[in-house]
């Protein structure tokens, strides 16, 4: 045994992550890209980053997913890979005729310090009708939410155009955890206030199963036209701290009012959303459907309070998602003494129940005798939930072993009703 080993034994900090729920920022960006019309995430990376992103996205959406990549080889490490990247992008553009190409710059080019301005110049002169947007997604800069947010930010930054405001048109920038069901629900609520919504990215019509025939790219989703028009909306609604910069940009650059929510889940979160919509449209009357949903939510809160009050639920989710669920949990008395997220915000540091960690941190707690009534995490929570015989509620990304999860609703009165129903029934059935 070396001397080094003995000395290190005292001073070691945790060096290994065990069972992370964090996924690559490249995957988050690839996920967001599915919500744009005729778009493709083009991975400037080794072949595996592209291939496995495609596999995971396909398993999650249960839809054909298109990704492409430059398949970096050893020579590109030494001589730089932009030449090869340009060739492979050109090949792809000739073959598939996309409208937006998101060039996702992975760890290899970011470590090398590759520079894209001449590449972009060449591509833009060659294909004037295709938009090329570089998104920096190295592994050492965050995870799913960060990748998702930077792709959305870059698309707005590059394409939004200002101009005269269109009355009754708003932008909705969903949080990274939102499903097709959530986006549909938002659009419906906005419609009941006679507002037309531009969703960026529109994951409700991109990879949602409504595609009838096979196509190499997403055929619906946010179009370039909509992105351009987003600068002329009357307001931008953003949810979740990670999406805030995109809303701020539209406000600063194109004078689009930014209305930000930490959560539109739970009674107060949903109330806040409705209040802001009323203020924006200057309406004092609310559709009967919404009133009824609010009453139902209050009713199910009372019906389940005996079961759910003081129940302890462990969460392993992205930080914005935890914030949204916590706002509902606080209203119904669910405590969540361990919540794990790949990263935590400064504002979250006040809350000691949320820590940066992995599923293994939950496992350690359980092994020490800590009692948890349910776990909310992505598919990877299964092994842990089975081992300790705890109900698992699948949420977040990826979910590869349940069907139709993309139609779940977590927002508004309706989403809160569904969430409480699912929580109560999974706790009760055991």
């Amino acid at each position, binding site marked *: 045994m070396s001397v080094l080993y003995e000395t290190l034994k005292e001073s070691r900090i945790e*060096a*290994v992550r065990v069972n992370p729920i*964090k996924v690559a920022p490249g995957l988050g960006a690839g996920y967001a890209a599915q919500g744009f019309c005729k778009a493709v995430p083009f991975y400037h990376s080794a072949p595996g980053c592209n291939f*496995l992103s495609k596999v995971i996205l*396909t398993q999650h959406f249960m839809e054909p997913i298109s990704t492409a990549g430059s398949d970096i080889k050893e020579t590109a490490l030494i001589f730089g890979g932009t030449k090869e990247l340009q060739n492979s992008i050109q090949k792809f553009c000739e073959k598939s005729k996309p409208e937006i190409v998101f060039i996702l710059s992975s760890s290899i080019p970011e470590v090398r310090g590759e520079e894209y301005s001449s590449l972009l110049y060449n591509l833009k002169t060659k294909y004037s009708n295709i938009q090329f947007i570089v998104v920096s997604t190295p*592994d050492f800069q965050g995870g799913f939410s960060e990748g998702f947010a930077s792709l959305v930010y870059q698309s707005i930054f590059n394409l939004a155009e200002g101009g005269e405001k269109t009355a009754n048109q708003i932008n909705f920038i969903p949080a990274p955890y939102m499903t097709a069901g959530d986006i549909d629900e938002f659009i419906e609520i906005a419609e009941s206030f006679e507002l037309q919504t531009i969703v960026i990215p529109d994951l409700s019509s991109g990879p949602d199963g409504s595609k009838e025939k096979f196509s190499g790219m997403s055929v619906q989703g946010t179009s370039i036209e909509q992105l351009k028009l987003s600068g002329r909306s009357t307001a931008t609604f953003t949810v979740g701290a990670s999406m805030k910069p995109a809303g701020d940009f539209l406000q600063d650059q194109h004078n689009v009012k930014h209305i930000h929510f930490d959560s539109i889940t739970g009674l107060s979160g949903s109330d806040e959303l409705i209040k802001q919509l009323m203020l924006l449209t200057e309406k004092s009357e609310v559709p009967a459907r919404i009133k009824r949903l609010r009453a139902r939510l209050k009713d199910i809160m009372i019906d389940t309070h005996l079961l759910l009050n003081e129940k302890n639920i462990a969460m392993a989710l992205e930080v914005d998602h935890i914030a949204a669920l916590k706002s509902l949990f606080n209203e119904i008395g669910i405590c969540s003494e361990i919540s794990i997220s790949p990263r935590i915000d400064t504002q979250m540091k006040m809350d000691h129940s949320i820590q940066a960690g992995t599923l293994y941190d939950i496992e350690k707690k359980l092994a020490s005798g800590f009692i948890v009534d349910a776990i909310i995490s992505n598919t*990877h929570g299964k092994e842990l939930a089975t081992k300790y015989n705890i109900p698992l509620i699948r949420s977040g990304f990826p979910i590869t072993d349940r069907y139709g999860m993309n139609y779940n609703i977590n927002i508004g009165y309706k989403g809160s009703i569904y969430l409480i129903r699912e929580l109560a029934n999974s706790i009760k059935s055991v």
Partner: protein
Amino acid sequence: MEQIAFDQPGCAHNTSGHKKCVHKPSGGESCAFDGAYIVLNPIRDTAHLVHGGITCGAHNYESRGAYSSGSRLYKYCFTTDLSENDIVFGAEEKLRNAIIEVHEKFNPSAIFVYQTCIPAMTGEDTEKICQTAAEDIQVPVIPVIAPGFMGHKNLGNRIAGETLLKYVIGTGEINRSLEIDSELSVNIIGEYNIAGDIWNILPLYKKIGIPVMAKITGDADYSEVAKAHHAGLNLMVCSRALINIASGMKEKYGIDYIEVSYFGINNTTHALKETLIYFHNRKIITDQFYFEKMEMINRMENEAWASLIPYKKILNGRKAVVYSGGVKSWSMITALTDLGIEVTAAGTKKSSEGDKDKIEQLIGKDRMLEDTSPKSLLETIKNTNADFLIAGSRNQYLAYKEKIPYLDINQERHTSYGGYAGSINLAKDLCLTLKSPVWETVKSSAPWENDLENIFKAAT
């Protein structure tokens, strides 16, 4: 190591003059790291520590369906999740700490350390770190040098093979008085126990009295793989990807190998009989033993055929398009032929030269499909009137979008298709997808697509 993995003079079809013989496709395939991870990950009581950014570890976390009947440690995802500081200041120290931490908390039989793109770029000496860490913790720490930029999945498979030969196989000893007769035993190489395939194969060997020394690597323990060099014969399953293990063991330990497959009834029978013939020819088993067991194989085969009859009635004369890599590309064709299904085309992009030769013998050159883009696959299905697409999971939703019955035969499936029992599962699943009423249901038109005028007229 890389050079060794590229060179494969042992391949019979390597007539190109140089020694390099790795199948190198142009795209649409995973990287070398992934290839190495797939092969080694099923060794169930070991920890698999991925030294790199989060992509490599998280993308492979529980992504394959290799089953285990023992330890579940192999399912854990261990990664160093390199940060910006780690890249600037180097992560060798972090890796050392990570290895020790894994050892102290999880006590694995061995630790496989995968070097991925970033540490390879910054020039870390992973091999050296593993060596000193192994001395410290007194547990094998095995470096797997397979950064993704090195090449595609197939190369990674071979790197994994080389790694096993160099660090694992040959390090374990057997207790001759207690354990199985090593001269008569076999290793099964290239079977990963996807969906429990190997659990349908092991009972067959038990019945014919041939002990299995090591499974490489499906449902295997580290110690089992370590003593694989004591076996009498190697059975190569995923033929081309791991052939370097078989040829390496022949060179190093003088163990012969035969190429087999357990997809389909005929393939399974062939594999079992070849094993007996090998030992009989070398007078390791007696004539009586040999004939008795050959008879038993015939009995098992006949039973399997008998239980297939109801399915064959449905499947006979149907047509299928197959697209898979490795041994599955040709063995699936034989398995389907067993069921009376005609293979109208087989995608060969992911197949090596040797596999292609076999496919050519089975279905002829004009049914081999080089272009396996979604568009080309769909066209082929339409042009040849095929009833199913049989492929890996990436093409599942391609088929579903076009309302074509489909079956997954790759790593992500959850039903075993290996051995006699698996062949029946395969027939059952094919019937399930083919006979499902949904294909008709989804063809019906929506109310607004009908001839509305007539409907309104009829209502009034």
